[in-house]
């Protein structure tokens, strides 16, 4: 009982310390610091049993320790360490030492000697391992101290003979991380340690414990990563390790071999059991290929992945990977691929109807057949057929990388890639389609291959179909039959899945513009024109007809003879489509219809420079406005903003830039306007109305600054400063307005303090940028800071007002690339008149499909907002998996939104839109929003005109007609 009470007392004692911590504010923390180490000391001394001590240590580890007190704490811990008999407590102390030396700002060289000393008498292997780990931490904290590192490495070498695998593991890790890398140091070290790090590690490649072997290889890789050139002699050792019994060893060995093959690609190695010699990279390639049929799938994945990055390998080795000599009853057999090719080249169309079609032909010399080749034979054939889809994906990726660098290989691997389009796992199919797209510039599809590719168009997965459309966009087709086939299949796809309309049109656009000469002979057939008879005019709204026209018009762009084949209505349709689908139909030079093609568009590219110049000129103009009268300033700003907005509409490449600057000028304009209000001269209560105007301006500036900061990709820190500065001004304005309108100083006091804090944090965040901001608002403010801190709120407001008026307009430097985040909701289209009916209280799923452009980290920031007619708003976080990434800077959101509401008497429209969430606390570059659980938070937020606090609406709202019916009883 007494013991129990005693324990309770101690527990309470520690609790007290903890509470002190929580209650104290950040500033006062400093006072408790000495007591912290002291408290630990007291705790440890009072601990009656090892278990108690362990408990104290565990509790202690949960709290952070300040930099200044680290050393003291370490001393106490060490002192206790020597006294402690229990291994587990020592282990904990050792791990704490490591943790403490990680503390930022603490230089651990002062405790290194002690840490090394503790190693001397330690008996427990686990504690030893932990201590070595601590030394590793210390060593990594002292990168510029070679002598310390040398010492640590020596210590590690000494313990390499330990009988426990854990200790040896740690030693190797330490040597790998801290071993000398530069040649000079290494030589110097040889005199000291008389040893070569590589040799020491290499000796442990044959250790009895697989974990140590793995650690040795990893350490070697670590050395390589740190810049040490590994010796070629290791290669043979590493090759032996490929036959190891343990998968982690083999996996690491594969990596090591890869590294060596990249280091010494051209050196020559002998082939065992023969006199021949080959390049090392070829040998390594063969060995890694061999590992693609390893027993463990982890190794297989590793091997398949690495194959992709071995581009120096000679081509005949590379091509062997796709070769698997078939035989049947010892007779050579042709692969299905070879047969298909032959069939194609012979022009025959009957496929193997007979049983004996694939009958084996010539006899094989039994001696020549090598069943398990040492070479690269058939590695990819195996990899692509593997049981685990991870391996298959890795193999496809590797194929992609190799094919990108070797056109002849790309041609060869085509058959295999096409085969992968039929894989059972969608991910693999998708990956292989993407791969094909990436290598498409190297290849031309044969008709039979195209046939197989097009068969996938019927896939029910939207992703697959769209990937395939993308692929077709950049494929080379060899014959006009191929084009026809592709068109027919795409139209079939269109009838089966009408939602693919846009994507199919786009695909045909590229198909047409890439193969004008192949399309030309098809035109009469496609348009079903007849030399003598007039044919009926097709329906203009038929998507299939539009698809055909898109193909033809795009081909006609670079084929001037084509328009001669068009009939009258085709020209009319052209004019219509050119207007309605201008992004798909190019301007054509039609005979006698010169006016139709707009004069601007054909020469878009050469205009680029002048328009950029214009942008800069208009900005220059604005920066000189300092000297104009107020009226002039306003007008100039207004005109410039108008110009910029128009420019953005005309020039899509400059849209981001123009919008960005326009927004900035808009902010400035608002600020100027607000400051020129007359209310500042009159007593506050009389000017409530104008007052509203000023506060609205402040509010709008705030919003715009958030937009500027978070909606544009490519914003650099220079711009961020300016944006923050503008925000600060807006806040100052807000403060002044409130000061004018509210009576009493109580609320003002808090506001002032908050504002000053913000100024302070601004200064801290952008200290490096301050010199560029001469004469700005914040510059002046910082000069006045000492006065501000001490003065009363009313005075503060006065000072602010004058500074705000006097401050100059800051130049906005433009970054290289600036893109505005945009979103376009494709689905729902908002055109439907049929309400979506569902029973009230239950949910209905609404498919949302949107394209996002230039959104960074869409998974974290893009939200869907649903606004109900009753003003209720619902915010939905889409799942990360709902975002696809079809190209750089582009994202696709395909998700389902669940709607629910109580019963309505008649159908009504709800609004769906996308929001970009931001967190004003984070700086642009660093943190993202703390992850909240997706789709779960159904927050009822107050509706507001311009979105929700912390989010920016960035898509046009789409209206959806819904009708919750009352439940039937």
């Amino acid at each position, binding site marked *: 009982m007494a013991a129990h009470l005693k324990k309770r007392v101690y527990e309470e004692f520690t609790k007290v310390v903890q509470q002190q911590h929580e209650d104290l504010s950040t500033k006062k923390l400093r006072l408790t610091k000495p007591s912290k180490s002291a408290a630990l000391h007291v705790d440890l001394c009072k601990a009656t049993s090892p278990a108690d001590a362990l408990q104290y240590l565990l509790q202690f580890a949960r709290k952070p320790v300040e930099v200044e007190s680290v050393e003291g704490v370490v001393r106490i811990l060490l002192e206790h360490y020597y006294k402690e008999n229990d291994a587990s407590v020592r282990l904990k102390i050792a791990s704490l030492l490591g943790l403490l030396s990680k503390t930022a700002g603490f230089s651990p060289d002062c405790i290194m000697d002690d840490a090394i000393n503790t190693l001397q008498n330690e008996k427990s292997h686990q504690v030893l391992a932990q201590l070595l780990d601590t030394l590793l931490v210390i060593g990594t904290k002292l990168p510029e101290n070679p002598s310390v590192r040398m010492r640590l490495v020596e210590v590690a070498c000494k313990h390499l003979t330990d009988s426990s695998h854990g200790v040896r593991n740690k030693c190797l890790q330490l040597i790998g991380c801290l071993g000398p890398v530069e040649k000079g140091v290494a030589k110097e070290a040889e005199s000291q340690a008389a040893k070569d790090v590589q040799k020491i590690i290499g000796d442990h490649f044959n250790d009895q414990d697989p974990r140590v072997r793995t650690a040795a290889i990893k350490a070697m890789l670590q050395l390589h990563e740190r810049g040490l050139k590994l010796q070629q002699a290791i290669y043979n050792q590493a090759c032996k390790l490929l036959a190891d019994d343990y998968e982690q060893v083999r996996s690491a060995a594969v990596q090591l071999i890869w590294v060596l093959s990249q280091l010494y690609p051209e050196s020559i190695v002998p082939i065992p059991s023969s006199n021949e010699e080959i390049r090392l990279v070829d040998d390594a390639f063969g060995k890694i290929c061999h590992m693609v049929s390893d027993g463990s799938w982890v190794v297989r994945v590793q091997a398949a992945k690495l194959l992709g990055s071995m581009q120096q390998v000679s081509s005949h080795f590379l091509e062997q990977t796709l070769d698997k000599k078939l*035989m*049947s*009853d010892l007779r050579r057999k042709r692969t*299905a691929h070879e047969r298909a090719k032959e069939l194609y080249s012979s022009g025959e169309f009957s496929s*193997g109807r007979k049983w004996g079609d694939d009958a084996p032909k010539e006899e094989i010399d039994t001696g020549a057949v090598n069943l398990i080749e040492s070479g690269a034979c058939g590695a990819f054939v195996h990899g692509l057929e*593997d049981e*685990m*889809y991870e391996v298959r994906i890795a193999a496809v990726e590797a194929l992609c990388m190799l094919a990108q660098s070797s056109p002849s290989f790309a041609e060869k691997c085509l058959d295999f890639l096409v085969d992968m389009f039929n894989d059972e*796992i969608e991910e693999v199919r998708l990956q292989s389609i993407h791969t094909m797209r990436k290598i498409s510039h190297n290849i031309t599809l044969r008709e039979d291959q195209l046939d197989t590719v097009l068969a996938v168009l019927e896939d*029910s997965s939207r992703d697959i179909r769209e990937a395939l459309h993308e692929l077709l966009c950049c494929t080379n087709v060899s014959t006009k039959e191929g084009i026809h086939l592709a068109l027919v299949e795409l139209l079939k796809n269109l009838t089966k899945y009408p939602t693919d309309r846009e994507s199919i049109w786009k695909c045909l656009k590229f198909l047409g513009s890439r193969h004008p000469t192949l399309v030309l002979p098809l035109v009469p057939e496609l348009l079903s024109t007849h030399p003598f008879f007039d044919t009926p005019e097709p329906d203009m709204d038929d998507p299939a007809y539009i698809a055909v026209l898109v193909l033809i018009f795009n081909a006609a762009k670079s084929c001037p003879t084509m328009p001669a084949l068009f009939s009258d209505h085709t020209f009319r349709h052209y004019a219509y489509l050119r207007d309605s689908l201008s992004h798909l139909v190019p301007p054509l030079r039609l005979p006698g219809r010169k006016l139709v093609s707009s004069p601007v568009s054909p020469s878009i590219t050469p205009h680029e420079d002048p328009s950029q110049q214009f942008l800069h000129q208009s900005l220059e103009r604005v920066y000189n406005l300092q000297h104009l009268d107020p009226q002039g300033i306003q007008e100039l700003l207004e005109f410039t903003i108008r110009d910029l907005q128009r420019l953005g509409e005309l020039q899509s490449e400059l849209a981001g830039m123009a919008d960005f600057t326009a927004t900035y000028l808009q902010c400035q304009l608002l600020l100027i306007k607000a400051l020129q209000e007359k209310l500042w001269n009159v007593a506050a209560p009389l000017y409530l109305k104008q007052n509203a105007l000023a506060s609205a301006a402040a509010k709008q500036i705030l919003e715009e600054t958030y937009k500027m900061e978070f909606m544009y990709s490519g914003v650099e820190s220079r711009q961020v400063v300016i944006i923050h500065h503008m925000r600060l001004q807006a806040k100052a304005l807000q403060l002044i307005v409130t000061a004018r309108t509210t009576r009493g100083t109580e609320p003002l006091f808090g506001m002032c303090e908050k504002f000053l804090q913000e100024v302070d944090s601004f200064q801290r965040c952008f200290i490096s940028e301050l010199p560029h901001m001469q004469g700005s608002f914040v510059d002046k403010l910082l000069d006045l800071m000492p006065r501000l801190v001490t003065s009363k709120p009313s005075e503060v407001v006065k000072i602010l007002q004058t500074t705000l008026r006097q401050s100059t307009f800051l130049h906005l430097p433009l970054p290289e690339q600036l893109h505005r985040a945009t979103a376009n909701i494709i689905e729902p289209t908002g055109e439907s008149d049929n309400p979506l009916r569902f029973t009230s209280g239950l949910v209905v799923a609404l498919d949302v499909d949107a394209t996002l452009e230039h959104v960074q980290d869409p998974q974290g920031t893009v939200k869907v907002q649903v606004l109900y007619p009753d003003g209720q708003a619902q915010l939905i976080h889409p799942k990360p998996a709902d975002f696809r990434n079809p190209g750089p800077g582009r994202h696709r959101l395909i998700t389902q939104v669940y709607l629910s509401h109580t019963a309505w008497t008649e159908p009504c429209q709800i609004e769906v839109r996308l929001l970009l969430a931001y967190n004003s606390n984070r700086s642009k570059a660093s943190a993202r929003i703390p992850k909240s659980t997706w789709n779960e938070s159904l927050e009822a937020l107050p509706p507001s005109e311009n979105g929700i606090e912390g989010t920016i609406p960035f898509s046009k709202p789409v209206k959806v007609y819904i009708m919750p019916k009352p439940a039937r009883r």
Partner: protein
Amino acid sequence: FPAFSLCAGAGQDVGRSCILVSIAGKNVMLDCGMHMGYNDDRRFPDFSYITQNGRLTDFLDCVIISHFHLDHCGALPYFSEMVGYDGPIYMTHPTKAICPILLEDYRKITVDKKGETNFFTSQMIKDCMKKVVAVHLHQTVQVDEELEIKAYYAGHVLGAAMFQIKVGCESVVYTGDYNMTPDRHLGAAWIDKCRPDLLISESTYATTIRDSKRCRERDFLKKVHETVERGGKVLIPVFALGRAQELCILLETFWERMNLKAPIYFSTGLTEKANHYYKLFITWTNQKIRKTFVQRNMFEFKHIKAFDRAFADNPGPMVVFATPGMLHAGQSLQIFRKWAGNEKNMVIMPGYCVQGTVGHKILSGQRKLEMEGRQILEVKMQVEYMSFSAHADAKGIMQLIRQAEPRNVLLVHGEAKKMEFLKQKIEQEFHVSCYMPANGETTTIFTNPSIPVDISLGLLKREAAIGPVPDAKKPKLMHGTLLMKDNSFRLVSPEQALKELGLAEHQLRFTCRVHIQDPRKEHETVLRVYNHLKGVLKDYSVQHLPDGSITVESILIQATAHSEDQGTKVLLVSWTYQDEELGSYLTSLLKKGLPQSTS
């Protein structure tokens, strides 16, 4: 310690697998198959090979069945109930579930249809299954104290397994039938680096290297799809289990992917029951099915429905799987006759057809078939052949050998001529000996077993402390006494051995005389010898004792003058048995004489 292997069936032959292995005194029978080609006594293995007199139960320690195909388990009821065997029979869970269905079906055909007598009965099948012990994958089953077996995944069909049989440190791996490439419903065979003394492998495709399965699948799907789009009907004759399920999954997923609406039918009967088991044993299937079964069990077909005879006359496209696979009888033949006249239709033969069957005829290009009743059937429908086989090809067999690293390989279940080729390849590539016994032939393989010996910790520590740091990869010399007592081996220290055996210790001492030509006085000679030894043996303690003798560790050296010739000194070297090594070294050293320079 030889391990025997006797092939009672399925030596150089396909069908009727039955192998007897004697390993370190234990007898294990692997598979108990029947031959489909015979209808007489030859269809079952000749069990009299095993033991001429005496009961099988006494002779055999266990029976292992690799999978449910009849050529691997067909003779089991005959063997256990009619010949008489009461010991344990091991098979995997799916095999145990499906095996009796097939046996019962087989029995029905032979007894009820062909009217044979003297065949096993339904009750016998049930009794036989009661003797079966089911095992899990990678579960080590202790048959008795010494014999243990372990199952590995083999692909091929649902529940197919490879078995490792281990007695002491000797082991045999029997593969049964296996497949090294995964298919639509099963994964690939896998084994760890167990380094057995003997690997018994099937070799059906010993001389074949197959094309990638993707081409075959794609061809198959394309043909079916085209025909269905044309409005034709597709007939796929299959056997009820194995490939049928693979093709079903293939078509099912294709239909799902492509959103096709044409109906797929499967002839009822056996298959429904079997599909039920496929649903249950999804842990035995491939990665895709295992990973997606939570959403949907792949064997719960959405598009595949049970077939009714009346459906064959329905208009419009359809795909029908019908049994049996060679079109020689039954439902598949009926449907074939109905559809053969229309060129829009198609029949796809997914497997091999025996000569004489309708399947074989149409595959070899015959267009007019004579049916029973002198009817002539004109075949206008398209005939396609697709090979879907689930045996490992030559490369696969080599891959398995590489994975398991056996010391010897024994090929069974294949044709002699083909096996010869593979045998040669195996010996050439892996440098292991390879055997291919004929039916009834016995192969004896000699192994080099390592014998475990117990050693007391004290002795181990004491011996390990002597000499350089132990290196695990190098053998180390230890001194001790080997005690063989009660069938166990122990290494103990000599003192303890003496104590245990109740013997007194005898000291064995070697003495040796070495003659040295040295005219000087005795003590001077001794001094020279002393200096010499001191110079050579730096690591040992060499002492010059006051009585004129030298000790090197515990070895005593004394010098006396030769009685006849004063110029010759006789060195007496004496050492105990324990110091034999050092002692003999010393003598040889002294025999070389003393270096002259020291004089």
